[in-house]
Structure formats: structure tokens, C-alpha cells
């Protein structure tokens, strides 16, 4: 433990950010790094708990107290070794993770949690700057070929782990650059793309082969891929967005969030894209959906110079504090104000959109909305809503971005031709814990299996699936697992 009384002496502080008015002028990341002293103080707040709930709250099982202590002692190599033993990509999670670890932090019972995510980011950036992050070309090659479909966080994690285990790994990506949502989903101002590129290059040095612009099931036959591989990991993500099929949906000016965000990322990266420009510039924008993607739309709209931005959420406004129904250390559904919100938006809760209204040219001109109230169950969970009589109204706008989440992976193409079974939510069916699909040699991980989730979960799934693939190929695996394994079963 860094300092026994650190949590009493120092308060939680986050690094400074570029002021909102400034940062919306470009697409750069805007969070500064801590000073050395601040970093030291923040790490000193960790109490090295007897039961570190953070370590349990993290989907990766990051060993948080240990790396906090190493940071406090300025032993960067040790910190990096510990962090990288559970997380292949701290530079991603250190930037964009909602940090369930911090929700579970024991200090959070009665004080602000330890700034775990920032510390994580600092560890990896310092490790890069000190050249501690090196390719981990395995000593022993197994000669086994593994194909990974999809290069999002799950695919990348699986590839990195499998390569570490000595297998020959090829990653197939249908887009022009690897990274999936990391590359073309998350805006640059939250994750600059050189960060992704840096990692991809490192993996290439490890021996991972990336094949972009190839869509399995279209550009190459899924069966061939399976036949030519000793194992296949499907990590194509959950890509089919939830639609809002109400009257007026065909009007011009209504877009899925991901189309909007992806295009802007390409624009920032200087990558050519096809199709019409999707811009919020000088428009009244309404973002439907109150989640992180919605926030990204808000931030992007602001940067494009929208005239006004509103964000609608059908659920009621969450409370600002934990309630008895969401006690520590659970991840609480409380009001979250993101950095994009800070940059300017009007937020509405309990609003249901009933109709898109257009002008004579078929352009969107307004939304017809109604206020709703929710009926709750005993655990305070919403069951169904009722409209508030007389609250119907029109709200003018020219752009709507639908950020209401994703339903399941694309079924046409690879999934159908490979014949992998789907679960009741229409994700690829594979049990957590073994990640195997019904098709021999074929595994699935990440959102494609789990359904839409967090980057940290995708990395976790990729790692755990890789371990299962390794076991499948070799009989046992020396790759790390996030949970305890019975060493006797591994060794004998």
C-alpha cells in the first residue's frame, strides 16, 4: 500500500481538461496528464483493502491495489507488468472505460473513489514513454493457425493473447483499418487514433497479421476460413442498431449515430468515405438515446457547429446519489454528466418520440414527442410507461441521431454461412466460460456473443476466449485468466 493515511490526506482530483469552449474547436483529446506529484497523491489514496472490491468490480480483474502501490513507489516497470498481466490495452480502457472498478472502490462508501482509470492511463502512457512496452514475441511457436474475425477490442485482445501463446494469428477486418469501434466508433476527442495505431503496430511486431478490407462470408468464404484455420474466433461485434420505426422515419436528416460518428472519424483521419456527408453544422440537433453513444453524438455535433443540441431519453432522470436499491459496491444507475454534456446540450428525460415530422421536401423539420411516466417494480426497476395526458408537443429540428443501442450482430454473410447457432437474443451462442460455438473449432467473443457492452468487457471476453482456444489447441493454457484456475487441472 502506498500510504496508509493517503486517503485521509488527499482528495480525489482528476487531471485538468481543456475548457469546453476551447476543446470544441477541434477533435483532439482534451484531458491533460497529472503532474508527478498529483499522480503520486492520487495513487496514495488507494487503501490496499483486505477485500479490494475494485478488483472484483473490474471485468478484466485488474489487480488495482498492486499497480496503485507500484505507481506510488514510482516503479513503472512493476506497475506496467501488473497492469498488462490482466489488460492488453490499458490505453483504451484508461480513456474510455466507465470504470466499474471505481463504483466498487471501498473509498466510494463515504468518499470519492480512487481515480483508478486515470492511474491506469498514466501507467500505460508512462510505460510507452519509457519504452517498457515491447513486442512479446513468444519464445515457442506452436505452428497452430488461428483466425480472428473482427478487430474491435474483443478481436484485438483475443489476437494479442493467442499470439502470446505462440500461435499464428490472422485478424480479418472488413473496414480499411483495424480497431472496430475503437477506430471508427469512438470519436477522436475521446480516443485519438494514433493510440489505436500504436497498439496495432506493436501487435504486428508480435507477429499478428491484420487483413483489412476483407469481410468474411463475403470476400472470403466462411467455410474456407474455418477449414484453413486450427481455430476461429468470431469477434465481429454487435452492429445492428436499434431503429425507431415510427411515422416519418424515412425523412431526410435522420441518421443512425454510428453512421454519423464513423464518418466524422474518417474525416478526421483523412480517410476517404463514400456516401453523403452527415453533418450537424448549423442544424438543430436532437440525439435520441441517453447513453455513451448519444454523448459522442452530442460532442461531435458541437464540434461540427450545431445550432442547438437536445438529447432525449425515454427513461426518467436517474437519481444523483445511490439509493438503497443500488447500494455500494454495485454499478449504480445514477445521473452521469459526460464531458460532451459539459460542452453544451439540453437534456430531457421521460420523453418519448412519437413521430418525425417533415417538410414538403421530405426533410425532417420537427419531432412529435410526449412526456411519459414509468411504473416501477419493488426493486425500483421500470416496467412500463404511460403517456402524460396533454403533454404532446412538437420540437423543431433538422437532424436526429438515433443512439438507442445495438440489437445483435449482422447475421447475413458470415454467421449464416458458417452455420453458428444463435441465442435467444440473436447473438452468437457460446457459453461464457468456454466461448465455443456449435461449430467445431469456432469460438465467439465480445459483443457478437455477449450483446452490446463495454470495451472493457470486450477485452475481457477476447482474453478469456483466447485462453479457451489455447486450451483447445494445446490441451492446457499458460495464458492468464481473470479468475482463479485450478493449477492441478492445468498441469496434470
Amino acid at each position, binding site marked *: 500500500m502506498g500510504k*496508509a*493515511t493517503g*486517503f*485521509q490526506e488527499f482528495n480525489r482530483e482528476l487531471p485538468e481538461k481543456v475548457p469546453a469552449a476551447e476543446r470544441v474547436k477541434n477533435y483532439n483529446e482534451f484531458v491533460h496528464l497529472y503532474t508527478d506529484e498529483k499522480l503520486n497523491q492520487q495513487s496514495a489514496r488507494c*487503501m*490496499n*483493502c*483486505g*477485500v*479490494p*472490491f475494485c*478488483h*472484483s*468490480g473490474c471485468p478484466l*480483474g485488474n*489487480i488495482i*491495489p*498492486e499497480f496503485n502501490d507500484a505507481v506510488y*513507489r514510482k*516503479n513503472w*516497470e*512493476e506497475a506496467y*507488468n*501488473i497492469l*498488462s*498481466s490482466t489488460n492488453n490495452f490499458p490505453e483504451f480502457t484508461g480513456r474510455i472505460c466507465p470504470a466499474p472498478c471505481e463504483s*466498487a472502490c*471501498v*473509498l466510494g*462508501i*463515504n*468518499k470519492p473513489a480512487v481515480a483508478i482509470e486515470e492511474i491506469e492511463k498514466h501507467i500505460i502512457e508512462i510505460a510507452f514513454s519509457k519504452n517498457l512496452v515491447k513486442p*512479446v514475441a*513468444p*519464445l*515457442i511457436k506452436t505452428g497452430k493457425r488461428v483466425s480472428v474475425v473482427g478487430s474491435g477490442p474483443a478481436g484485438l485482445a483475443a489476437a494479442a493473447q493467442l499470439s*502470446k*501463446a*505462440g500461435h499464428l494469428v490472422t485478424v480479418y477486418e472488413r473496414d480499411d483499418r483495424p480497431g472496430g469501434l475503437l477506430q471508427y466508433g469512438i470519436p477522436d476527442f475521446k480516443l485519438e487514433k494514433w493510440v489505436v495505431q500504436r497498439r496495432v503496430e506493436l501487435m504486428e511486431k508480435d507477429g499478428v497479421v491484420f487483413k483489412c478490407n476483407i469481410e468474411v462470408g463475403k470476400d472470403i468464404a466462411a467455410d474456407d476460413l474455418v477449414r484453413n484455420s486450427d481455430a476461429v474466433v468470431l469477434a465481429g461485434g454487435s452492429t445492428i442498431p436499434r431503429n425507431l420505426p415510427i411515422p416519418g422515419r424515412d425523412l431526410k436528416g435522420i441518421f443512425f449515430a454510428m453512421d454519423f460518428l464513423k464518418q466524422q472519424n474518417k474525416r478526421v483521419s483523412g480517410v476517404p468515405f463514400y456516401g453523403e456527408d452527415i453533418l450537424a453544422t448549423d442544424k438543430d440537433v436532437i440525439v435520441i438515446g441517453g447513453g455513451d453513444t448519444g454523448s459522442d453524438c452530442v460532442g461531435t455535433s458541437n464540434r461540427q457547429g450545431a445550432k442547438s443540441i437536445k438529447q432525449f431519453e425515454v427513461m426518467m432522470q436517474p437519481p444523483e446519489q445511490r439509493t*438503497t436499491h443500488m*447500494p455500494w*459496491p*454495485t454499478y449504480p444507475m445514477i445521473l452521469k454528466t459526460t464531458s460532451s454534456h459539459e460542452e453544451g446540450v439540453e437534456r430531457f428525460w421521460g420523453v418519448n418520440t412519437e413521430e418525425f415530422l417533415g417538410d414538403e421536401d421530405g426533410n425532417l423539420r420537427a419531432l412529435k414527442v410526449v412526456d411519459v411516466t414509468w411504473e416501477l417494480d419493488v426493486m425500483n426497476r421500470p416496467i412500463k410507461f404511460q403517456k402524460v395526458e396533454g403533454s404532446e408537443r412538437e420540437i423543431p429540428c433538422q437532424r436526429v441521431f438515433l443512439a438507442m443501442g445495438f440489437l445483435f450482430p449482422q447475421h447475413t454473410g458470415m454467421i449464416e454461412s458458417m452455420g453458428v447457432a444463435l441465442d435467444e437474443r440473436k447473438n452468437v451462442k457460446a457459453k461464457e466460460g468456454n466461448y465455443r460455438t456449435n461449430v467445431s473449432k469456432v469460438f465467439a467473443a465480445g459483443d457478437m456473443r455477449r450483446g452490446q457492452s463495454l470495451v472493457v468487457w470486450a477485452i475481457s471476453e477476447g482474453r478469456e476466449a483466447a485462453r479457451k482456444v489455447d486450451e483447445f489447441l494445446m490441451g492446457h493454457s*499458460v*495464458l*492468464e*485468466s*481473470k*479468475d*482463479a*484456475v*485450478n*493449477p*492441478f487441472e492445468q*498441469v*496434470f
Partner: protein
Amino acid sequence: MDQTEDGQGLYRPEFEHDSCGTGFITNINGHKTNQIIDDALTMLENMEHRGACGCDPDSGDGAGILIQLPHEFLLEECSNLEISLPEPGEYGVGMIFFPKESALKKACRVIIGNAIEKLGLHKLGYRKLSVNSSTIGETARKAEPDVEQLFVQRPHHITNTDDFERKLYILRRYINKTVTESIPAAAEHFYFTSFSCKTIIYKGQVTTYQLRQYFPDLVDERMASGFAMIHSRFSTNTFPSWKLAQPFRLIAHNGEINTLTGNLNWFYSGLKSYASAYFTNEEMEMLLPVIDNNQSDSACLDNIIEILLHTGRSLPHVMMMLIPEAWDGNEQMDPIKKAFYEYHATLMEPWDGPAAITFTDGKFVGALLDRNGLRPLRFVITTDGRVIAASEAGVLKLDEKLVLRKGRLQPGKMLLVDTEKGKIITDDEIKHQVASRQPYGRWLENYKIRLSELAEPRLAFASLSEDSVFRYQQVFGYTREDIDTIIKPMALDGKEPVGSMGTDVPLAILSDKPQHLSSYFKQFFAQVTNPPIDPIRERLVMSLATFIGNNGNLLDEDKMHCHCVVLQHPILKNHQLEKLRSIDTGMFHAKTLQTYYNADGMPGSLEKGIARLCRYAEDSVDDGFEVLILSDRAIDSEHAPIPSLLAVSAVHHHLIKSGRRGAVGLVVETGDTWEVHHFACLLAFGATAINPYLALSTIETLKNNGSLETSLDLKSLQKNYVKSVNDGLLKIFSKMGISTLQSYHGSQVFEILGLNKSVVDKYFAGAVTRIGGLGLDEIARESLCKHKIGFGGSKSGTHLLPEGGIYQWKRRGESHLFNPTTVHLLQHATRTNNYDIYKNYAKEINEQTEKHFTIRGLLDFAHHREAISIDEVEPAENIMKRFATGAMSFGSISHEAHSTMAIAMNRIGGKSNTGEGGEDEIRYEPMPNGDSMRSAIKQVASARFGVTSNYLTNADELQIKMAQGAKPGEGGQLPGHKVDDWIAKTRHSTPGVGLISPPPHHDIYSIEDLAQLIFDLKNANRAARINVKLVSKAGVGTIAAGVAKAHADVILIAGYDGGTGASPISSVKHAGLPWELGLSEAHQTLVRNKLRSRVVLQTDGQLKTGRDLAIACLMGAEEWGVATAALVAGGCIMMRKCHLNTCPVGVATQDPELRKLFSGKPEHVVNLFRFMAEELREIMAELGFRTVNEMVGRVQFLKVKDNLTSWKAKQIDLSGILHPVNNPKDVTLYNSEKQDHGMDAILDWKLLEAAKVALEDKTPVFASFDVRNVDRTIGTLLSNEISKKYGSAGLPDNTVNYKFNGSAGQSFGAFATKGISFELEGEANDYVGKGLSGAQLAIYPAESATFTPEENIIIGNVALYGATAGEVFIRGMAGERFAVRNSGATTVVEGIGDHGCEYMTGGRALILGETGRNFAAGMSGGIAWVYNPNNTFSENCNMEMVDLDPLSIQDEEQITTLLHKHIHLTGSKVAQELLANWKKASTQFVKVYPKEYKKVLEKLQYQTIG
């Protein structure tokens, strides 16, 4: 014997302990009189309370007397039988217990006849003793033998009595051996109490009063002896045990040999080399095995004394060898004597343990105390030429005029009377004489080998490379946690790390992580029958010195015995090991043996490897090597290391069996040894010295790669590490009450938990293992698992060891019962009062289907009855009264947490426990809303913080904490920063000054002492139950039986796993056993002894759910303690930082800011207990029990789960735990009768009667009383009555004024409160003014006495222990441990023994004479003034925590005031003289001023002035 030694269930006869009173009386000139015998019997009768009786009150535990052969009497008696006895000395008398059955008796007689013939002796005849069988108890009568005397004539060729005595010795041993071998049925009852031409012993399973009645011989006026030695036994069992009554042939022993297994092994280990000029080879054969099996430790000691005596050493010489003084490191000791001890240390290890021994060979009569002085022995020398020595003073009423000297034996000292020469020989004189017999000093000089003097090693030593270090760490099972939590702090701070909140990880045998072999070994610790030692404050009695080499022939004295390597401690650094490896003195060589085995994973590979190792070891000894180095360095991918503990123990036992062990030293060069516990295991199973090369290399690597934040260089870091190992070892020894490494060496003081019997019998022979477990191949599997990881090729290339996760929950680490899920569910359930969520929590804990944590986790309920409706089960309200919370002190936890527990328990009718920190009186008052913060259980722990008469009065139960699960055998410390004003007030100490709890209760060194404390507390509050808290360990059942006989009302068996506060982490994990074992053993043993119904049996230790309660109940517990779970319900999140005062939820902290964060409510805690009770009720309904009482002890309702999957769990055999013991029909399986505390006849009723008006309206009263040593605990009950009425304020000073005449029994004035003023003319025994709570005591010799008071012992040991207020004036000297843990009383005394004012935190002590050694050890407060005219005091003072200052003016004022008062109350001459010459005298006083206390006082003074 029908019920004793079947060893079914968990009981083992070898766990038996006994303890007692002993003494002797002698005419110095040896003049034989009948009076001596009569007086001795009276002395014995006056020590009845030091013995005990069993379930049947008329059956004693044994009493006896040893006298000289009463020739006149025997001559006449024999002539009646037509046996004509020759002259005294020309015949020997065997006193024999024969089996009653005539065929057996006849067969024995045949053997005796043959043996006498074979040895060329002549039998004169038998005399059958008439005895009064009707006088003894039923249990004793069941096993009563026929007692006969056998007369044997001395042949003409034997010309002196010593040779004849030796012949009789051979005869006795030979007969004994032949009977044992040829008529096993008779062996049980056949026994020689004595066989000598000088002495004879009358003893049996009788009470002290019955002895006289049972043997009419003893009251015959013709009987005469010059001396008599007596003994009264207090055994922990109630089984018939005629043989175990004492005295034995040479000794009577009050004490316990803690190291018996090792001592016996060491004795047998040299058997092959034993030869003596005094015995022919044939005779030697007849003697073997010299020490009998299956007898008590005292009997073994007697056996070894015999053989050493008969091979040419004098009795004093033998006693000095076996029970040496603390010589190592004693710079004040005479070099001749020190050389004697050092020389003999190379030959034999001490038989270590608390001991007061009286001994005689018919010529010398003497007594001896162990180095710690842990048993009392008082003596009187009279002007008419008698010496009377006994465990207590006043056992024989004497005319004070006849007293020449009153004394007590000092630690390590001997009192000797030579009855032939008619003189008393002083300790100095006899020891000088013995030590000068040979030029021991010169022998040592010539032959002793010191490492520092050895040549540099021939080969340069190569360190492991960093990569190899990592690989070795993997192979030997290091984790990151081991390095961070254990090795780093040891290297950085030189201290063993501490942790808190107990342990909740799986037992080693249930863990699915590969274990270190030593994790299956649980440390023994002392409780009740012997005390632990304080390794820090009483370091002077301890020693780590060790000797490597050939021990030689024990029965001979040879200069070459000391030709061995001498080490100051057993840890060798690499360079030292290399020196030893290449040693070559021409007569001394070392041989290295590789301890690996084939890593092919085939069955039997490990066994083969060990067999080969043992073979090589044997060959090497035969080849003449004196040192064997067992090394596991030479491992590779094909060869895995034999766990070093297994390797060393296998070789050790192999060499013992072949009688070669004594010829060689075993040095272990090992990678798998890094925690203190690992080292302790190796030493206890045979290693002589240890080189932990991998731990040392690990430190080197840490230093090199910058993982240590330190400026220390590598050498200092390694030195720190070695120091902390050594300190840790001392702590482990001291826990068991063992003082020296030599005695610990090979002592095997561990219980093995999880290895099967065949492994244990073969490789750890003699160690206890009761639940079976791994075989050799399974051990190999664990070792190979690590080996494969190390040599399996790490693919990732990163150097990360496994996390560990023992001391902290880690996701990939070891599993914990309290983990993020269970803590969350429990808190959520209790805060929302939601039983469904509780059931989820309980399910997580209870359902250990895939993972096993605990023994109870392996069990299922067995249904033998129809399930009943839950409505038929007694209501939860009834059940909740059976709950107690664990003892957590105010100090270790916050007021908020502490009072929340108390309120909750009071709401449900359960009992909360103060813990050892006292309790603020404001909590005795009910709160406005009707709640109460008063803790029903008041704990009495070793430090006695705040234990006053009023505290004891305000209790429903008084709990004597004998040990604590987290750190049995150790004391705690409350660091100064946690002692705020409030805590200081509650604990009667000074804010800011740290507090130490001594490892032992200084008033409990033995079972009879515990009985005394129970009696004291019963006097202090007779409405309260007396609860004795024990920690589960092998033999706890036997102790529990003893405690039940000592009249405890409740016995708590605590598991090893509980505990808050700071504990060394090795103690938390490695000391003590799960409660399942201890509870079952206790229940079984109590039932067998017909004692179960007399006590309530309670258990605690990680009880978390109703299922836990149900299992505990079926195993025998009718009440349950819950601590951790209750704390978690109150907000604890298992931070495990209690020792740092930084608890972030305000539970275990005194930081006012953090305390504000405490969020627990009594209702949360109440909810937990209600949920647990409801869950229990559900189980009861299912099993068909309507009440808890009908469920208690019904172990048939438990069975082993039939679907155990874990390969390790499958090896366990729980039949011992599940063994039902049938209750005798008059005994219930639960508490149903009250103990008889013997309160009816005590003197205090008279005191109370006389104080009636004082109690009514504070009118002063005056009275006087005659007292004897059987009048114990005077004034305590009276104080209880005062406290009841007047609280802590008591009565005005000098309200109750009593004068006593005579010898007061133990605990005179214990817990005597304000308003009481006692005067005692005469003397007092131990514990004067124990817990004094405001009274004034004055003690002075009888007016008629002619001796000089200041040179004589007037009061016994441990006076003023835990006194909190009041004044004590002693005209004369006190014994050892005067004013220990005094926190407020003022006292004047004219001389004291060793360890004075130890751990004192307050009050004033004025000492007008000599002090013994180690004065002021651990003294953190109060002031002592010592008169020091000869300037010798500083040598005796432990300077660690105190300054010696001159007197200030205020000091002088206080001293002169006290002197005047002392004169006024006692008539002290010393005080008069000092005052008369005050000017000079004032410069001759030293002020002993604790440093921390001084700082705080000066700061206070500064603040007041400022």
C-alpha cells in the same frame, strides 16, 4: 482400561497434563522422627486445593509421600511375617501395585522371582499392605491395585548402597520390561512405586486427606524418617491413574515438560552409542528402553534422572544438566558455571517447561525451579534444624519464634540439604562444586568450533542468476504476496509483518492451490497447563544457540562431546554455509546430500527419492561425517525438490530409528523456506541449522531491480531478514512456553492437519494427525505442480509470480469466505432487513460444493427423524439468547462499533463482550430509550486493563481469555497513537503511551492457578458465570476437562481463524486449529469424564450462517460466538487494516474523523442474529429437533458429504469428529447442573457479617480474624458487595478495618475496593492485592518472629498483578513479578524477586531493598523508586523502556510520606533508618522513569504551565 486409552474419537492419552502442589520437610541433620511424616502429611492436606477431584468428588487425582525406609517399623512388621530383615542398607524394598486378579498377580510374581534370581539377588519375602479401600472414591476403587512390599537382600559382593541401589534399578526395570512384554494384561496395573534400599513411596489415586486413611502404615507411630517429600496432583482428566500419582522414585514435579516428544527422541537417538562403565552390556539391555512408554512427562523425567544418576553423576549434577539456568547471554554468570552449562548443552537439551521439582536420592533432599520460575516454591528454615519447602507458605503451622529464615526459591536456583552431612548447601556452593568437577572451560576452548574462526571456503560460491531466481521461486511456490507481505517487511524493517481480521481461506488440505508442506502443520501453543513466555520483555531466559555435530555418549563424560560447531542462531547465510561445507578439522567433516526426486510423476517416485536420501544419510554417518547438508539446489527439469520439511524429518527419524541421529548435525540448504513458520517447522522436525538461500537471493533481486524503497545495502537487508526470522522463532518457541532453540529442536510441537497417518508415522513419527489427508504421492503432486510451472516454459516471458491472496482477497488468488459477493450480500440483507437476500448470502457461504473451505463444509446433515413443522421449533427469541459477540476491545474497535454491538446484543438477550480493554462506567447506565450499552461479558485478559471490583461486579459473565484464536500464546500491543484520552481512562493508563498485553496471565501458570483465578472471580461476582476461553488445539479437550474440574461454568472453544486487531500473520494462519476439531474433542472428552453436564460449551471462529450454528450445536456447542459477521453487518468491509488505525468505515479505528464514518446500527446486527437463528430453526425443523438442548452433541446427525469431488478433500477422514461418545446415563450432553464453587465455607462471609453496618451506612467497623493458607481470596466477596452498592467510588477510606493473624492463602485482598483497610500479621502467599481496586493492605511478620523482615519472604509471587488503585505496604520481601501490570496502586516493599514492575503502566512502587533481574521490562508508565546503596541496580534493570533518574524534590516528598506511612502501618525498621539518614539515603535512590511516560508527563506539565 475400559474407558481411558482406546483413543477413539479425538481424545489421545498423550494430551494429558497434570500439575499440582509439592513440597518436602527434612531434619537437616537427618534425624529420623515420626513427626516429620506427620507434618508432611499435614502439609499435603493443606494443599488440597492445589489438587483436584473428578466427577466423583471422593476420587482424587493422586497424592503421595516419599520417606526414608522406616527400618524399625519394617523390621517389626516383617518379623510378624517371619521375614527377618538384615541391617538398614542391606536390603531393598519394592513397593508394588499388583493387579487384583490373582492369576495375573501370580504371573507377575513368577517373573519377579526369576528376575531376582537372574540378577543374583535374594528374595526375603512379600508384605501385603493393609489398606482402607472404603476411604477412597468410586472411580479410584475401580482401578485399585493390591499394594505389596517386596524385600530383597543385598548380596555380599555388593559392598555399598549406591551399587545396591543400581542393582535394584536394573532389577526393577527388567521386571517391568518382562511383565510388559509377556503379560500385557497385567502391564496396566503392575507398577513399582519405588524399589530402593533408601527410600519408599506411599501413593495412590487418593485425595490428600485420604492418603493417611488409606495407608494405615503412615499413621503408625513406629514410622520414622529424616525427611519426607510430598505431592498432590491436579490432573486434567478423571480417569483412574494410580501410577501417575507422585512422588516418583527421585522427584516430585509440579510443572510440565513442553518439549517431551523432542526430549524423548533425542534420548532414543543416541541409544546406539550409550555405554557406561557402571553397567555391563547385558545389564544395559535389561534397562532398555530406559524411559517407559505411555506415562506422564514427570514420570519420563524421573526415568532420565535415574539413568543419569546411576551412570555416575550426582543428583545435583543431573538436575543442572536437565533443567539448566538461563546461561546463554548472561554476562553476570560465573564463567566456571557457564562453561559447565555450555559443555552440557552440547550433550543434552534442556527438558524445558515450568517446573518446581523436589528431589531426593535418599541422601540429598532438594528443590529446583526452572529458569523462568514459573512455579512457586516457598521455604522456611527453622532454628530447630528443619527445612520446610512447599508450593505455598503456611502449609505447616509454625511457631514464628522458631523461624530462622523465610524464603522462596528463585528462578533457576536450587535448594539442597545434605542430610548425611547435616547441612544446607546454597545454590552457589553446590553449583560451583559440580561445575568444577572437570575443566569444562578448557575443553570448550580446545574443541568448540566457531564459524568465524573457520577458514574461507575452498570453492567460491555462485549466486543464482536473476532468471534462475524467478524459476526457483516458481518451483518452490513463492507468490507475489509472499514477497510483498512477508519478505519485504522482514528485510526492510527486520520485523515479522502483522495483519488483522483472522483468516477465512480454505484449510491447506482443502485448497486447490498447491500448498507449502508446512501449511499442513499447525503450531502448538501453551494454554492453561503452562504459560507462554514473553520473548521480548523476558528475552533473557531465551536462547537461540545451537550446536552442530556429534552428541556422543550421553552416559559418559568426554571432552570430545563439545567438539562441534557452535552457532549463535540457526540461520546460515550463504557464505557461512560454504564455510561449513568445506570444514575440515581432521576430525570433523560435512557431507552434502541432494534432496531431489525424479519428477516423472509416477507413483512412488517421491518415496524412492526419500528412501535414497535416507540411505545416503545413513551411509554418511557410518562414514564418519559429523554434518549432513541436505540441499535442494540441484534441481532441474527432471528432478523436483523433496519438500525440505519432509526431507529433513525423514532423515531425522530414519537416523533416530537406527540410533545414529545423535552422531550428526543436519543442516538444510533450502529454497522453500522463507516464512518464520517454515523455519520453525524445519527446526521442530530435526534441522539443526538452515540456509534459506532462495529467500536471501530474492532479497538480492529485489534490491537490484529497485523494488525496495530503501537506502539500506544488501548486507543490512539480509541481516534484517535473519533477525526477523530469529525474533519470529523466539516468538513461536515462547508461544509454547519453550525457552531455548535446543529444546525446541526436534520437539515436534505441531499438529498435522491433512497428512495421512502412514506418512506421519513414517516420516514425522510421533506427531499428531487426526483427520488423515495426503499420502506421499499426493504430496508429490503438489510439489510437481509448482515444478511444472517453473520448468514448463513460460510463454509470456514476463516475470510475474502468482498473486497469492492469503492475507488479502484477490480474484485469482486463494478463495475467501468473506469476499466481495458475501460482504455485499450480508450488508445488503441486514440493512434492508431482507431475509431473502440473507439466504442468498448464506447459500454462498454454505454451499461449498465445488470449493471447500472448512471441515464443516465437508459435512451434510444426516436425517434420523421425521421433519417437523417449523412452528414446533422453539422460537428465535429463545435461540438468540445463546449468542455472544466475540471479544473485541474498546481500543481495537471504536466506541461506536463497540457500543452498537452491545446495544444489539442487549436487545436480543444475547451477550456482548467487552474484550480486554475495560469498559467505561457510563455504559452501565441504561440509555433513555431503554437500550443498554453495558456488555454482559466482562473479559479478564492478561493485561487486566480496567479490571476492577466494580467492573467485575457489573457483569453477567466473566471471561478469562486464556488464548486468542488469531494469536494464541501471544500478547497484544495497543500502539500509543491509538490510546486517546478516553481509552486511557478506561484502561487506567496514560494517553499516548503504548500498552502491552503480556503473553501469559501472570497469575495462571498452571491449571491449579486457573482454578484459583476462577475462585477469585467467583468471589468477585458470584452471580456471574465464569467462562474460560480456550483456543482449539490438539489436547484442548483434556484441558477443557481440567478447566471443568477447576469449576468454570462456561468453556469457550475458539477457532484459530477469528480475531481482530494486530496479529503476526504467521500466527493467524499457522497457530491453532479449526473449532470443529477442538469443540468435538472437548465435547467428547467432557462426556467421557462425566463432566459435560457441569459446563456450558460455547464455540466461535468464523461462524457465519445458521448452518454453521447447527453443525456447531451437533458437535457439542450450546452457545455460539459471532464476531466477524456481526462486524460486517455493522459496516466492516474486511479492510484488514485494524492495526493501522485507518479503518475507513470507522469500525476499527480511534481516529475521530474516521469514527464519524461509522454507519452501522444495532438493528443491522440484530437482523443478522435473527436471520441466523431463523436459518437454524429451518434446519432444526428439517432434522426434527424442537429445542437446541436436544440437539447438542448429537453428532450422529452429521455425515460426510457423499459427493466430494476435490482430490484432496477425498483423502480426509472425519470419523474422529463424527465419533459419538455415549453419555453415561446420569450425564446430559448439555449443561444441566451447576458447578460447586465451594463458596459456602469461605472466610468472607464472616467478613461480610462484620461489615454489615459499614455497608449499610458507612459506619467504620473493626475486627480481627485468624487465617491459614486455606483461607484464600480474602476480601474479594466483601468488595463485590461494596461495589454492588457503591460502585467504583466504594466506601470512604478506612471504613472496613480488619486485622488478620497467620498465613493468608492465595489472593489476599484480591480486587479489594475502596474503604477496605486490611492488616495482616504473619505472611501471605501468591497474588496479594491482585487487581487491587482501592483498598489499603499492610503486611508484616508476626510480632514474635525473630528473623530480619527485610531479608525474608513475607509475601509470594505476582503481588499487585493488575492493581488499579489502592495502597500496599509490605514489611519484608516479596517474590517474583511484583507489581506486574500495576496501573494505579502505590506500594512499599523491602525487596523483590525477578521481573518486578513488568508492564507497569501506572502507580508508584517504592522498593527499599534488592530487586531481582529484569526489573521494569515493558514498563510504560508509573514510577518506581529503588533504594540502591551499592549501585548494583542498573545491572538488574531492563533499560529498554525506562530511564534511571535521580530523585526530584517532588519524588523526595512522595517517598518520605510513604516511608512515614510504612512505619506507621508496619513498624518497618528499614524505613525508620532511611528517614533517620534521609540526607544520605535520598542520594541512594534511583527513580525508574518510563521514557514514553516521562515525555507525556513533561508535555502535560508544559501545557499546564504554558
